[in-house]
């Protein structure tokens, strides 16, 4: 494939203002709940009050006034009662006579004129359930896994094998084994879940809502709704945050709203209040990971054996792919010839877990980066020198046999972070549980180093072939401009701005003439879901190439129509040909719109032809490219109370070409803050009744502005040259490594290693006083 000639870069690399910023800052952006419609019904989901049981009966209270109310159960599903997801096992609504598998599992949907009436009616549906004993948590599942592996219920197994593990352990001078745990994490987007389903006269449906992946409902509900993809049209409303939380779940919500909409013939809206959103939508998968590692006296890792177990909840949904990404990161960042990783997705009687920024990688990196520090300690090597010794770099072979190219800035990230944080010197000042002279608090510094596979796993991008268009059109002011037509959604991360920069540079046009309409599956080609840190890297390339395609069309039109066949170039909003006066773009574009009605550049993404991936064996090129990062956390712990104060975080990242350094740094600081919450604050347990114990913002504790440390964020650029402008993944990377960096700092400060997230003052206290405090789980 020949690489296109890049135009002179103007906007790429600059901190252009957010194109969607004005409306969001002024509050004029209209989110779903700002839109008023006439004749809406409001839906309320009827949920199972028990985590497991047989559904024997569903009876609307005969004494209740049901006039004007639409009630649907599984019996109203036109087709097969299943949401496709990845294994076609999850019913859209629990089936009469079938098994209820989690607390809150939808049994029916009530729709009424007001949300209050719907909620009241939902409370008048009587469920007859024969209660069965549940298995609620990952702790219980792991206990089964350890004691009776045969009885362990795994929804998906996958292994990665490299070299010969037995030989690796035979070569080792020492072996270290440990287990690491982390619980659920809630995405906590500002705008709760919500959407409206409008039934259409032709039997199709139109869906509007806060939907991260507009094409998912189009392709996941064909069986239950008996509607082909072209009869499910999804229009995105502005999204008030998603973080993965609006990836899989809106599909289910679309199903819940579609049933009463189809039955009543009226549009049905479902929006959740915060409580319902926290209690009954998917979260990050809890993890249990066990590492057993063999190493020589000189530190060489000879064997890595890893069991990686995620709590998938009651149904697989997309947990297989989360687990895949997890195991692909369990030993990615270090040199080792003999690796065996076994991934499993445990089935529990809880809400299915779903997508959340990082998608399995933070869980893997949490274990690996904690464990690597423990190995360094065993070897008596400082953690940074040990990482410099064994980290993966260009030319190394990953656990799946992929050779890392020269476009991996792993070493540069590590070195720059160590230097900027002055790590080596500060490491010597760490308290290790003893106050030095002049210290009132224990001080600790901790490092984590990691890579993140960018874009879909394996041959996902090759199969998917992301498509996009860049169109010449008339804008609202009547003058010509450009529409970017890709299904990537803006949810706060800045994609509208970044793609505007890419298109403006490719076309050599003023960004003010470029528009990025919200995704509408009726109009927008499928460039894929906005997930997997793939958008700027893969879809950015689609936009770039489609824009170049359009540019060529404009130039050849101008050549023909205005320049008598001379070679013409679109440069800085003008069409120029040697020896002739230039013509403004607007003039040529107007002629083009008048004569041709418009023009459209198109591109379809492909991976390099030499990419190889064996999905069965998990061998080959597991990702098109890798981003890298080193995080360093500096903390203080008050010996008086065990309260933890993160003072400073240094993050150096290789995300390939940085399109917009301001929005990129913003992403990093936001992601690090989310990771800080995961590390220290965000804790949610499950009661015996199967309900989460933290159902409100009062009890689910996320960081406030006061909890945020000082950040030092730096980029080193090793662009992905195959796909200009050469970005790699950014979105998830900042979520990946701060938790283990903090755990490592806690160890340096207190002399105790905490192996369960979040690391609360209670957990540190328990670690320091094993007799008094039972270890917090």
């Amino acid at each position, binding site marked *: 494939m020949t690489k296109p000639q890049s135009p002179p870069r103007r906007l790429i690399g600059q901190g252009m203002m957010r194109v969607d910023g004005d409306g969001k800052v002024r509050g004029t952006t209209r989110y779903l709940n700002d839109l008023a419609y006439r004749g809406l019904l409001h839906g309320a989901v009827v949920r199972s009050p028990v985590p497991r049981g047989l559904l024997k009966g569903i009876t609307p209270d005969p004494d209740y006034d049901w006039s004007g109310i639409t009630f649907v159960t599984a019996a109203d599903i036109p087709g097969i009662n299943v949401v496709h997801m990845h294994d076609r096992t999850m019913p859209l609504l629990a089936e009469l006579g079938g098994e209820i598998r989690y607390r809150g599992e939808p049994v029916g949907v009530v729709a009424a004129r007001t949300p*209050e009436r719907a*909620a009241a009616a939902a409370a008048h549906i009587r469920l007859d359930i024969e209660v069965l004993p549940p298995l609620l948590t990952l702790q219980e599942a792991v206990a089964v896994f350890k004691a009776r592996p045969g009885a362990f219920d795994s929804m998906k197994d996958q292994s990665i094998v490299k070299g010969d593990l037995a030989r690796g352990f035979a070569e080792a001078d020492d072996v270290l084994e440990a287990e690491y745990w982390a619980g659920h994490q809630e995405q906590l987007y500002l705008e709760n879940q919500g959407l409206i389903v409008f039934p259409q006269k032709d039997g199709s449906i139109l869906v509007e809502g806060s939907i991260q992946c507009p094409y998912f409902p189009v392709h996941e509900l064909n069986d239950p709704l008996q509607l082909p993809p072209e009869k499910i049209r999804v229009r995105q409303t502005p999204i008030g945050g998603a973080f993965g939380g609006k990836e899989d779940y809106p599909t289910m919500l679309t199903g819940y709203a579609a049933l009463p909409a189809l039955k009543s013939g009226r549009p049905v809206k479902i929006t959740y209040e915060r409580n319902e959103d926290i209690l009954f939508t998917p979260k990050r998968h809890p993890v249990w990971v066990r590492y057993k590692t063999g190493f020589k006296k000189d530190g060489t890792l000879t064997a890595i054996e890893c069991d990686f177990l995620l709590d998938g909840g009651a149904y697989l949904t997309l947990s297989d792919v989360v687990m895949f990404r997890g195991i692909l990161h369990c030993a990615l960042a270090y040199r080792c010839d003999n690796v065996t990783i076994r991934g499993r997705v445990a089935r529990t009687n809880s809400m299915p877990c779903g997508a959340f920024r990082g998608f399995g990688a933070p869980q893997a990196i949490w274990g690996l980066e904690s464990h690597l520090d423990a190995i360094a300690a065993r070897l008596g090597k400082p953690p940074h020198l040990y990482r410099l010794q064994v980290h993966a770099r260009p030319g190394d072979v990953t656990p799946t046999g992929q050779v890392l190219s020269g476009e991996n800035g792993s070493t540069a990230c590590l070195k720059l972070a160590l230097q900027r944080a002055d790590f080596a010197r500060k490491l010597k000042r760490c308290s290790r549980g003893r106050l030095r002279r002049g210290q009132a608090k224990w001080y600790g510094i901790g490092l984590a180093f990691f890579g993140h596979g960018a874009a879909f796993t394996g041959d996902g991008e090759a199969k998917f072939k992301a498509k996009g268009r860049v169109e010449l059109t008339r804008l609202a002011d009547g003058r010509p401009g450009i529409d970017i037509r890709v299904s990537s959604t803006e949810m706060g991360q800045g994609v509208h701005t970044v793609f505007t920069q890419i298109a403006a540079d490719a076309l050599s046009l003023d960004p003010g003439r470029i528009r990025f309409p919200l995704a509408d599956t009726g109009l927008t080609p499928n460039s894929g879901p906005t997930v997997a840190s793939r958008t700027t890297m893969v879809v950015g390339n689609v936009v770039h190439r489609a824009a170049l395609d359009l540019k060529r069309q404009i130039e050849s039109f101008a050549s023909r129509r205005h320049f008598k066949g001379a070679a013409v170039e679109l440069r800085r909003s003008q069409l120029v040909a040697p020896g002739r006066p230039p013509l403004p773009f607007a003039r040529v574009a107007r002629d083009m719109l008048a004569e041709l009605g418009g023009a459209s550049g198109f591109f379809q993404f492909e991976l390099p032809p030499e990419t190889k991936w064996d999905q069965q064996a998990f061998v080959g090129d597991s990702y098109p490219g890798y981003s890298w990062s080193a995080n360093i956390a500096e903390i203080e712990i008050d010996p008086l*109370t065990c309260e933890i104060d993160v003072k400073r975080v240094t993050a150096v990242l290789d995300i390939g070409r940085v399109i917009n350094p301001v929005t990129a740094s913003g992403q990093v600081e936001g992601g690090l803050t989310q990771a800080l919450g995961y590390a220290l604050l965000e804790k949610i347990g499950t009661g015996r009744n199967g309900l989460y114990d933290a159902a409100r913002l*009062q009890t689910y*504790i996320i960081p406030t*502005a*006061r909890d945020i440390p000082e950040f030092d964020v730096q980029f080193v650029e090793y662009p992905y040259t195959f796909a200009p402008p050469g970005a790699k993944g950014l979105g998830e990377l900042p979520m990946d490594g701060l938790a283990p960096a903090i755990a490592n700092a806690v160890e340096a400060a207190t002399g105790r290693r905490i192996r369960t997230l979040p690391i609360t003052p209670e957990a540190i*206290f328990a670690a320091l006083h094993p007799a008094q*405090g039972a270890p917090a789980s």
Partner: protein
Amino acid sequence: MKITETIDIRFPKTLAEALRLQAGEKTRGQLLAGGTDLMVQWASGAPTPERATSIWNLPELDAIEIFDDFIEVGAGVTHAFLRDAAPIHRHLPALVAAAATIGAAQIQARGTLGGNAANASPAGDTAPALLVSGGSVLLASRSGTRTVPLDRFWTAYRRIDAQPDEIIVAFRLPRKGSARERFRKIGTRRAQAISKVMAASRIRIVKGRVTSAAIALGSIAPTPVRLSAVESLLVGQKLTPALIDEAEQLAQATVQPIDDIRSSADYRRWASGRLVRDALENL
């Protein structure tokens, strides 16, 4: 859940008018000060009252007066006002420090001292500071006024010694004089945080010996509590490291906290002693 019922909110202009509204058993409404507790309770499904009486901005409740021995803080005084009222800082530093930890700026601007006390949450941050002052609560009703010592005011979990027709008018809080005060809160995070444990203390030392000691904790029992055993241990003694160790351990042996969503009983018990140590080491 949304607030869908209509609540008839009355806005009396004077305390007398408010007391009149509160007197009738049938027509009495729920008192609404800053609303920062009530609005949350109503929105999260607590039964909403038919009526409420706003006492926000009632002039009789809004003043802080400095007398020779004590300070009278109106029940309607906000945490922000307390936080910024420089003249009382040296007289009631623990209370001021407590007020400054409540929620964040927005809640401090609206939440009142009377509301914090009347809401009677074990995690109410001002309660331990009020307790160690040794002061009292001034209550008014149509039939007159009465005074309740603060250490008898919180009678049980979320219960106070006040009748439904009574309004807290003010808190009469002895100035600390030569004593030292300290307040420290261990919250769930650094702002907008509910306390896991918090402690206030007022300790006077004359010629190296403790002459009086008041230490109170919150969030470790159904009500805010004074640590009277620790207080008696200290009085008359020299504050040696050994005595501080003993006080810490006695505090830990005395309290009987519980596990809940915010913390563990073990941690709370340990931290109770640690906060006592903190108070004694920072005199």
